[in-house]
């Protein structure tokens, strides 16, 4: 199967990511079966599902860490799934909030500059333009004035913005966020979401936002993908967040409330690290 080149046809763009009947295994056991969907450039897609629904596996697939056991996964017109592929640098990845050693000897700026290392390659030292990109990324997340601080001295929310800046320094086309709102307080969540939304608009980034927290993402995304070992539903939040669809995944104890044009969902699902 061939695809149209995005730039060749004016007004028509090809998907940036396409899954065609792709299945993936996690530690040898099937985790996701027969995924078929695509993501358009500039789209903001929320990926939701309960624990063990395959969110992490999909994330690894998107990062090129696992190859499909059957079917096809295409990113940037390439079916690569090895880390050495140059396409890797086009995906900026914010891993699930991991514990940052508060005394690790690294400054904010050094952390962001690490975003350039993949593109730099081995044996090359960061140049002035790499430093400019890192400074630009820090400006975008509003933390340039803290650039010389040790990373460990920053608050949890600030550290997360630094890690987003590191992803931006890669100059990615796709920003992949793994549970970014887990374990942060409500004001930090709000600030983070508005930052991601702004980056999405200003930098024209394709954003993939993986979360178990449906209500956090549903107001901001273009589409939601609901996973449960397979793709249960994908579409506009209002179409996905129906009682019937959610009950099929989370069980009958699902409450869907209409609220200001959107839906507020209560499901019996807790996030575990």
């Amino acid at each position, binding site marked *: 199967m061939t695809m149209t080149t995005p730039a060749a046809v004016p007004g028509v763009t090809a998907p940036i990511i396409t899954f065609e009947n792709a299945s993936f295994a996690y530690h040898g056991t099937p985790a996701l079966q027969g995924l078929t969907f695509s993501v358009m450039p500039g789209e903001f897609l929320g990926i939701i599902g309960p624990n063990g629904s395959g969110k992490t596996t999909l994330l690894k697939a998107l990062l090129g*860490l696992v190859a499909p056991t059957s079917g096809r996964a295409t990113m940037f017109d390439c079916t690569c799934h090895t880390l050495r592929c140059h396409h890797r640098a086009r*995906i900026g990845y914010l891993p699930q909030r991991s514990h940052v050693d508060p*005394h690790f000897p690294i400054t904010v700026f050094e952390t962001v500059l690490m975003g350039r*290392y993949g593109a730099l390659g081995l044996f090359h030292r960061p140049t002035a333009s790499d430093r400019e990109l890192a400074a630009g990324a820090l400006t975008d997340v509003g933390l340039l004035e803290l650039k010389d601080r040790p990373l460990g001295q920053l608050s949890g929310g600030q550290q997360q913005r630094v890690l987003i800046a590191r992803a931006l320094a890669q100059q990615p086309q796709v920003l992949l966020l793994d549970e970014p709102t887990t374990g942060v307080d409500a004001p930090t969540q709000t600030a983070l979401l508005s930052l991601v939304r702004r980056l999405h608009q200003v930098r024209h980034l394709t954003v993939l936002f993986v979360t178990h927290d449906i209500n956090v993402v549903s107001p901001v995304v273009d589409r939601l993908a609901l996973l449960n070992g397979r793709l249960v539903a994908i579409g506009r939040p209002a179409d996905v967040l129906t009682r019937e669809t959610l009950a099929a995944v989370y069980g009958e104890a699902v409450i869907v409330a209409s609220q200001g044009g959107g839906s507020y969902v209560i499901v019996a699902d807790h996030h575990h690290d």
Partner: protein
Amino acid sequence: MTELLTYGFMQRALAASVMIGTLCAVVGVFVVLRGLAFVGAGTAHAAFAGVTLGYLAGISPMAMALVFALGTIWIVQALNERSRTAFDVSVGIFYAASMALAIVFIGLMRTYNAEVYGYLFGSILSVTARELWTIGLLSAVALLCLALFFKEFHFIAFDQEMAEASGIPATRLFFLLLTLVGVTIVVALKAVGALLVFALLVIPAAAAYQLAGRLWTMILWAVALGLASTIGGLLLSYAFDLPSGSTITLLATAFFFLAVLASPKR
């Protein structure tokens, strides 16, 4: 004290102290940051098993130590990747197995060999010129590797998963880092002994971690404290007729507690 420096054995001991102190400190920074202290301990004992086999079979003990140290590290890493055995578990298994092997080999020797025990407890005053050259060469290679992949090692120590996802060959470079740890241990084995070798790898860097906010300053502190420990320990052990390896280790430990007390991070 100055006449001490005219002795050939003392000059060699000091030269070995400087090289080992520097190498262990620099590699140790990454060991401490990446949490590989137990790997250091396990590998040191595997290297000792290699030494005993070397004496038993009449092969170069240093070469056998290198084979055993790297063999252990590579198998542990392979186990970790393939069968998902936790790192500290497989290191623990090799730790126990290599000590058992060492004791079997010593038993097979039938005669008491004082030199073998030198590798267990350290005998920096009996380092030969030939061994000094080996130490120098291996140190230079290890430090060169660290310099070449400095920015990647910093990234891996900080967050290996992230480094991998950013397109850095993090798994392979981690493998190289482990190899450098193995080489470093073999380099330091004769001087401070298998029981104490990982002390030099871990303690100066751990002290430096207390004092530094930047990677470069941490390395400089680690080297300074590593050299102060090895050279100071050597002179103290000579002056008070104490075992060299133990004196070096105890001095390094004293520096560590001073660093904790002086730490701006507390």
